[in-house]
């Protein structure tokens, strides 16, 4: 197995170009390999040793009751827990074979590879164009205006937003509807050319129609990206994901093919949760 698909400390220059075929991975290659991941917030332990492989080119859903640690684990995958002063992360998480908690890894470069979409749509108070161009600009991905226009357009297209906003790219991003804002945020994450997109309950603030659009989008995006989604809706996990992991009280109870988890769970706690007995 190739250890470094792309060094974590080099800028990405592959935006908009087809990927190097030698880097092509299938839906059976693990993108993340996590072993014995423990997280403490101050004195409180939030995760008690998580072991999981997350596959590339597929959607993995994290489900579980509130406070079970699924969002905490998601935030470990791009080191967003670094921004919380009291958080401490132990254990190893390999991204393409490379330990992302290694001291040599620059979290800034890591986060360009592992993008994230949050619960509440959080477009910056800038125009739609500037929102999408924000990441490419700070990473110096475009050398000319044309190149930037191209990145913005292709990112918006990938996020299925282009048709709705192409005539008002220079209006405020905050003026869009909730569902459009969430797709704008996804386009913003795509624009940096990530390999992974983490989604923390991306539909919990949206109405059913906007939710359906996002789910459709997730299904398209999995052709290109490794997607990890935290969701409270078991129906959503069943609809969009190929793999499902069930978290409970800071433990990973069960992980497997989504079909198996929902039809034939091995653990009693999973059974209880998906049949609605708690959570």
């Amino acid at each position, binding site marked *: 197995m190739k250890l470094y698909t792309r060094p974590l400390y080099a800028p990405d220059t592959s935006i908009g170009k087809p990927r190097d075929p030698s880097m092509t991975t299938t839906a059976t290659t693990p993108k993340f390999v996590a072993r014995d991941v423990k997280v403490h917030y101050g004195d409180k332990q939030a995760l008690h040793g998580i072991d999981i492989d997350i596959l590339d080119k597929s959607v993995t859903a994290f489900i579980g009751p509130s406070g079970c640690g699924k969002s905490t684990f998601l935030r470990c995958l791009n080191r967003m827990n670094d921004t919380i002063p009291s958080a401490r992360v132990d254990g190893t998480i390999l991204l393409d074979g490379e330990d992302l908690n290694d001291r040599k890894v620059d979290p800034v470069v890591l986060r360009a590879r592992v*993008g994230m979409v949050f619960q509440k749509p*959080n477009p910056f108070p800038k125009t739609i164009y500037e929102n999408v161009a924000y990441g490419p600009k700070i990473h110096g991905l475009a050398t000319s205006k044309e190149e930037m226009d191209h990145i913005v357009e292709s990112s918006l297209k990938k996020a299925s937003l282009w048709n709705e906003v192409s005539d008002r790219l220079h209006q405020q991003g905050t003026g869009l509807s909730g569902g459009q804002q969430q797709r704008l945020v996804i386009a913003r994450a795509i624009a940096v050319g990530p390999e992974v997109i983490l989604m923390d309950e991306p539909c919990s603030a949206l109405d059913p129609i906007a939710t359906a659009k996002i789910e459709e989008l997730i299904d398209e995006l999995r052709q290109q990206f490794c997607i990890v989604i935290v969701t409270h809706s078991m129906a959503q996990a069943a609809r969009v994901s190929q793999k499902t992991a069930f978290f409970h009280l800071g433990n990973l109870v069960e992980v497997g093919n989504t079909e198996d988890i929902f039809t034939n769970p091995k653990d009693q706690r999973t059974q209880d949760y998906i049949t609605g007995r708690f959570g």
Partner: protein
Amino acid sequence: MTGYLFLALIVFSVASFMFGRSLARRKAAAQGVRAHSLPAFSGWFVAIWSFIPAAVVLLVLVIFGARLENAIVQSDVPAAVQQLPELNQGLFFQDVRAIANGGTPSTTVYDGELKAAFDHKVAQARSVDSTINLGAYVLTAVLALAGGLLAYTRISPQFRARNSVERWVSVFLVACSVVAILTTLGIILSLLWESLRFFQSVSPLDFLFGTHWSPQIAMRADQVGSSGGFGAVPLFIGTFLIMLIAMCVAAPVGLFSAIYLSEYATPFMRAWIKPVLEILAGVPTVVYGFFAALVVGPSFREFFNWLGAFMPGTPMGEYLMNVQNQMALVAGVVMGIMLIPFVSSLSDDIINSVPQSLRDGSLAMGATRSETIKKVVLPAALPGISGAMLLAVSRAIGETMIVTMAAGLQAKTTLNPLDTVTTVTVQIVTLLTGDQEFDSPKTLAAFGLGLTLFIVTLALNLIAQRIVQKYQEQYD
């Protein structure tokens, strides 16, 4: 005496509270029902009715009693006094009041007919005084008793004392806010009135656009430098210059420390720095003032003199060698230091109200912390921060103590920070300190300056508040 009367009224009200409460209890017990209101509310009801009408009348008598007395005493002026000049008539009645109420009379000696008139008036003043006092006692006692009794008779288990007390509470709160509003109105009106008197003798155009400020009025026509000049432009420029220097210090230092505090500081550092900044905010401005005058001024002067010594013979060197303690730079820098905690705590609040989700969004795309601050947090917080800066400007313009002690008194039209300038506030202080007569343009000029200052700071505050408010609504 009214003090004792007031005390007695309070004692009486406390007693009526007890009576009211116990009556409510007894009546409820006798009828065997649960009263609408708790017994304490009935107590409060009786106490309020015993206290408030009597207290209001007492207050009116305290405020207007002396005037009533004067009006009665002066209503008929004795023939002997009528022959005196008007000024001496006033003096006569002042002495009458002083003797009657145990004050210090003037040294004027009254004899003959005047003596008789004087004694007569003193006696009249005393009798009027005692009548008013007696009236106050009787009226207070009657009102307190009547109010208390009336309220007492209304108490029953069915009576809604709770609602009635609630109404009085709201009346009390309204009264308190009315006091604040009336005081503000009074200040504005007196400022306007006195300014109008000033502008009758000095044209507003000369005042606002004139460049010569020397607010002296000649005692005699042939006096040297007798022509007063009331052109306030040098003061405005001095104020502006010092404000500009102060903001050059306060804006960057305050803003950057706010950014550090809200974005970078660990909770431990924050726990130390915040209180220190608050101590800085708590230093009285007069302390900053003598700090400026005694420490900063001399050391700046020495520094510039030392600098000038490197350029002997040149005009620049000569100038620097002769720089004085009192200069705009010193006042401005010290005022800037005074404003740092103000700017920093306001900006800190505003930066903190930028939602965390925006920061997360930026960080999650691989932006560094400073990129996030520069490109997301600060642009989002900009309207609020500019509002905070305007508030700081308005404080810098109104600040008095530091400039009085460190800026100087000479009104010069200059933008040279090493020169001595004077500000609007400093001139108000110098115009009004000491013994002043309140009818010459010299003292009235202070009101003109005060009005100008008031209008400018009011406008700045309104604009700033509007901006900050708009900004906060955006993220609610």
